[in-house]
């Protein structure tokens, strides 16, 4: 736990995984990569007001989401889990709608997807995962909650409180930290006292696992074990996936102000998770060049479809300002809606 260098360092092997699983991981990662590029382009074209890239974190996201069962588990994301959403089966036009600012939480059905709404409060959704998991066991069901959060989020009080609750209740939660080394402009060295998020696990009596976040197989293994443990009723696990935010924090960010890009370049060149998995697939004989070309073409097409879908999605009706505030609306809100109709309605 003391070393904080990603395990693996260059070698990603998928020999031990079922070929179809590894192809599926690759497909999702490839699609996420393409969709990410489309999204950056949409932001440049002014279709998206802003975008937060997941580039370089596709393995951490896709492989963790793919280790879950979308029929019984539940995911609590932050604002940067596009690739997880994709792998988990979320309706992606609805997901990307959040980046077009059509609706803050996204336009997919959260309860049907079993994938929480896009959540911009750093650390905020982590206790939700614990509540969900406590409720799951209370009912005697075996679903597992997975909470995503960043290295920066690990500093928030909510994340601590959530882990302590999970430990006390033995709740079936996987705390999945994508440590991409940066929280906006602040590097790990000035964010995470002691240098390791995973090392905090022990203090809550739960396993703290460090994994190479750019090694899809390693992430999948770690999450699979944590999920199995939680399903067996053995409680929570904290996983820290070491990765790197190769892009700026968001399209509004300017990394030139606070970091030297050589490190990012090294990650881009030597630790690209999509390239690493691709090589591993070939190496393991799980796919050949033709199959991969077909997957790539399919991924590109899917990304374009999602891009076109979100670009074409209608803007929300102004009445939606009022319809979702309560399940049982109030007279006062109805009155305000009338003002909107009379004085604002476009």
């Amino acid at each position, binding site marked *: 736990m003391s070393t904080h260098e990603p395990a693996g360092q260059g070698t990603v092997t998928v020999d031990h995984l079922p070929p179809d699983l590894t192809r599926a991981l690759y497909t999702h990662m490839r699609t996420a990569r393409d969709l990410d590029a489309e999204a950056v382009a949409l932001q440049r074209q002014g279709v998206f007001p802003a975008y937060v890239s997941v580039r370089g974190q596709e393995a951490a996201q896709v492989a963790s989401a793919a280790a879950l069962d979308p029929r019984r588990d539940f995911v609590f994301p932050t604002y940067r889990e596009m690739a997880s959403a994709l792998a988990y089966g979320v309706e992606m036009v609805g997901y990307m709608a959040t980046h077009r600012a059509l609706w*803050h939480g996204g336009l997919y059905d959260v309860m049907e997807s079993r994938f929480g709404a896009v959540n911009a409060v750093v650390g905020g959704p982590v206790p939700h995962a614990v509540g969900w998991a406590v409720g799951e066991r209370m009912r005697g069901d075996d679903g597992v909650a997975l909470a995503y959060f960043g290295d920066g989020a690990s500093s928030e009080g909510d994340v601590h409180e959530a882990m302590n609750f999970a430990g006390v209740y033995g709740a079936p939660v996987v705390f999945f930290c994508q440590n991409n080394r940066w929280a906006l402009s602040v590097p790990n060295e000035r964010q995470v006292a002691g240098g390791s998020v995973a090392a905090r696990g022990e203090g809550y009596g739960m396993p703290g696992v460090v994994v190479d976040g750019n090694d899809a197989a390693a992430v999948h293994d770690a999450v699979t074990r944590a999920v199995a443990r939680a399903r067996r009723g053995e409680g929570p696990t904290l996983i820290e996936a070491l990765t790197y935010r190769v892009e700026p924090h968001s399209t509004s960010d300017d990394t030139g102000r606070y970091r030297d890009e050589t490190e990012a370049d090294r990650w881009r060149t030597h630790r690209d998770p999509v390239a690493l998995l691709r090589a591993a697939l070939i190496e393991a004989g799980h796919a050949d060049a033709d199959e991969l070309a077909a997957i790539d073409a399919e991924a590109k097409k899917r990304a374009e479809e999602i891009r076109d879908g979100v670009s074409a999605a209608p803007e929300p009706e102004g009445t939606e300002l009022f319809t979702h505030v309560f399940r049982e609306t109030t007279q006062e809100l109805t009155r305000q809606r009338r003002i909107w109709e009379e004085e604002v309605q476009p």
Partner: protein
Amino acid sequence: MTELIDRADAAAETPALELSMQQAINRALRVLLAEDPDVLVFGEDVGALGGVFRVTDGLQKEFGDRRVFDTPLAESAIMGMAVGLAMNGWRPVPELQFDGFAYPAIDQIVNQVARMNYRTRGSAPMPITLRLPSFGGIQAPEHHGESLEAIFAHTPGLKVVAPSDPAEAYSLLLQSVRSDDPVVYMEPKARYWDRRPVRLAEPTDPIGTSRIVRPGRHATLIAWGAMVHKCLQVAELAAEDGVELEVLDLRWLKPIDAAGLAASVARTKRAVVVHEAPLTAGLGAEVAALITEHCFRDLAAPVQRVTGFDVPYPAGPLEPQYLPTIDRVLFAVQRTLEY
């Protein structure tokens, strides 16, 4: 629907009992836990101890430590857990031990609980009722006498209620917990122990209605929580001088019963709003603004506000000098009558 009728029948049969508000709330929680297996009661010390005010007394014994359970000491996580439980189909009734310790949970309440329905466009259920022992008057330590209603009422997506007597506490809690929207249920600590004959009954008035607890014609006193009792005392005194004060228990602090306020003040032409929270940006300002908007031509005087001062809630001997006193309300009544 038949279920509703059954409930109403059951309530009609309830005999009058000598009960404190703390006991009435306890009974309401029992009814709720019994009628709906998804209701969960949790918070700091609500289990074996039965809460610092004994409001949850005996519930863990009766319903087990799965339905009624203690949490670690972390208010934000209590509310965050409530969100996750709600998303997993439960109907959480968390308690935060004291008003002043709701502040550490404000982020979860405002940024998560209050807007999850909105954020998910109605997908994620959020039927959370936060029970919050509130307001002052018991000479407690710092942070144990706060009135947060203005913050909650200002938060879109929350409904807010503060009962003023045991019968009200009972039916308003049933109504709050059965509602599919998040409700902040503020319990006036100073009234917890006051026992009086009450007939426990199912809720009948819709959410967002106020009630006239004493009719009158010279001015309307508006209050909630423990201040309703104070206003009744004032009305009693004023009556000796021939001044007939109407006392309106606002009870729902969001949504506010603008029509009820307007109807009363249209008759009395004068209004005094009384609350424990500090004056500036307190809910009294909203009440005054609403009344003025609705009754501008009828009003014989500006709405008077009698409130806590704009100072941090003080300790023991200064508490009675901070809270609205009978005299201060009487002065305000006089001001409005003589305006």
